[in-house]
């Protein structure tokens, strides 16, 4: 086991694929080919089952109906008012825009997804915070629970430590010293314990959404091709307790660890084995493995991923 239990890293997965293909040494299938199969398998699992679920920060911009979709698919959109209870927006089609009643006036009430954008109806008159419940492509873990007291360059107002603290009105940057891979999507998780100002994560020149509330925040940020340094920019009093980074690259190193939960990881090896069997024209055997994988995907999607609400009967007392 090279991956940290219960996870399997690229080396573990490759070892299993080679066992199942009975090719313990690298005789016919090069490592890069196995990694390619594993990458495809991970994406297929995420696409078929929607198992990579995130809650992403987002924002409706005043005067703009459309905003970019930062993930594979949006399932729900939550409108977060400055005070009062949040609510889920109703999904509509572009045809229905403007035809439905607006009981809440100019506040966001409906949404639709089209191409690489999602639209808000009515068009927001001012900026509003949103939360997107999405299914996404799987990432490779860069680092989770990154130490915040070393390995960063502290700018104005920042005091390195655990927790990491920013004080004072002037804006200041806290820059992670390790450069990230350029030109690929990253998923950033920032956990804030207290905040009275703002905290904006960014990779290079690409900024995320400003964080103004405590709690867990997830954002997908596309890293620029160069100078892909992760930065936290803060104003006012902010206390950060956790930062984690994942990147949307393919398997290309033995230590690569997929973010897919452990329950899916052995299926990666079985799926990759299926590609190996196809490559050697063992079509019947490949079909058997495809059936097994399809059954497992459906079972896990139904029993571990889908949200099954409690029914009224489950809460009813019976004498």
């Amino acid at each position, binding site marked *: *086991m090279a991956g940290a*239990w*219960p996870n399997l890293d690229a080396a*573990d997965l490759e*070892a*299993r694929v080679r*066992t*199942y*293909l*009975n090719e313990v040494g690298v005789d016919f299938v090069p490592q890069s080919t196995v990694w390619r199969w594993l990458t495809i398998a991970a994406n297929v699992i995420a696409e078929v089952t929607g198992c*990579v*679920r*995130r*809650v992403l920060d987002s924002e409706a911009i005043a005067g703009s109906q459309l905003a970019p979709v930062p993930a594979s698919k949006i*399932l*729900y959109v*939550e409108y977060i008012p400055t005070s009062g*209870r*949040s*609510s*889920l927006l109703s999904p509509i089609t572009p045809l229905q825009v403007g035809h439905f009643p607006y009981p809440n006036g100019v506040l966001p009430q409906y949404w639709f997804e089209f191409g690489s954008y999602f639209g808000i109806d009515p068009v927001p008159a001012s900026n509003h915070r949103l939360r997107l*419940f999405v299914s996404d492509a799987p990432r490779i873990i860069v680092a989770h629970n990154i130490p915040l007291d070393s390995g960063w360059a502290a700018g104005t107002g920042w005091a390195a430590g655990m927790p990491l603290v920013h004080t004072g009105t002037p804006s200041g940057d806290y820059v992670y010293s390790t450069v990230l891979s350029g030109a690929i999507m990253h998923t950033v998780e920032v*956990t804030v*314990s207290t905040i009275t100002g703002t905290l904006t994560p960014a990779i290079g020149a690409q900024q995320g959404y400003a964080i103004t*509330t*405590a*709690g*867990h925040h997830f954002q997908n940020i596309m890293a620029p091709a160069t100078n892909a340094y992760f930065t936290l920019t803060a104003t006012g009093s902010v206390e950060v307790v956790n930062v984690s980074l994942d990147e949307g690259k393919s398997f290309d190193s033995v230590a690569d660890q997929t973010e897919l*939960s*452990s*329950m899916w990881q*052995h299926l990666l090896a*079985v799926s990759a*084995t299926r590609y190996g069997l196809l490559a050697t024209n*063992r079509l*019947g*055997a490949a079909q*058997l*493995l495809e059936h*097994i994988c399809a059954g497992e995907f459906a*079972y*896990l999607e139904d*029993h*571990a991923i889908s*949200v*099954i*609400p*409690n029914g009224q009967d489950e*809460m009813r007392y*019976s*004498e």
Partner: protein
Amino acid sequence: MIYNLTNLEALIRNEMDETSATRFTPAEILAACNDGYKEVASRAFCHEVVQDVVTVPGSPLIHWSGIKVLYAAVMSEDAEAAYVDTTSVVFTDTGDVVWNGPTAADWIGLGVCRIDPSLVGTAPLEEDISYPQFFFPWGNCIYVEPVPTVKYLVRLFTAQYPDTAMINGADICEDLPEEFRECVVYFACYVLSMKYRQWQQMVFFYNRYIELLKQKKQKFLQRSVDRYDNKKLPVTVQLEVVK
């Protein structure tokens, strides 16, 4: 122990009709057993673990990791004051004693209903109550409604992965209930059958593994509540009067 690693290997070699290590190395069998250990836990949801988590005031999201949240209950208010250990006081839960707060007023102890995400903002909330009343899991988070204004201790009844891998011969799949350990044998046989392209055998072992898993899940993990019908006595026989 019948299902320790040494015995698991022997059982697997028996099933695969291999008395000595000629086709499958011990390392391959060990990997298959550990994979089976995790697979059984993640398909049967049988490694049940209670986790206590604390809400973040102002945020509906609680971070969590594992296979699945089966149930949730809100336990107490002002969780930090009640639960965080100090140098002089350490709140250690035992099997019989769970620390719920310094005063009875903090105690809530209420099961939280899982809802569909589309009900956020419209699910009927109890008035004047700010603790979590609804929840749903989403990825590695739990979303609670309403958004807590203070720290609440939320108890999650979860299915988890096994804590540690098996390494030595005496190690057992200790995080699986005993009745589920047999499934590991058939899982390992299924994956190892691929190596020598014994496809018919692979299908047999896979089906056996799934069948066992289904049976045991239904038999040992299905929860039932006492209902009025369970307490009824059989109806006495009455002869109908034929007119």
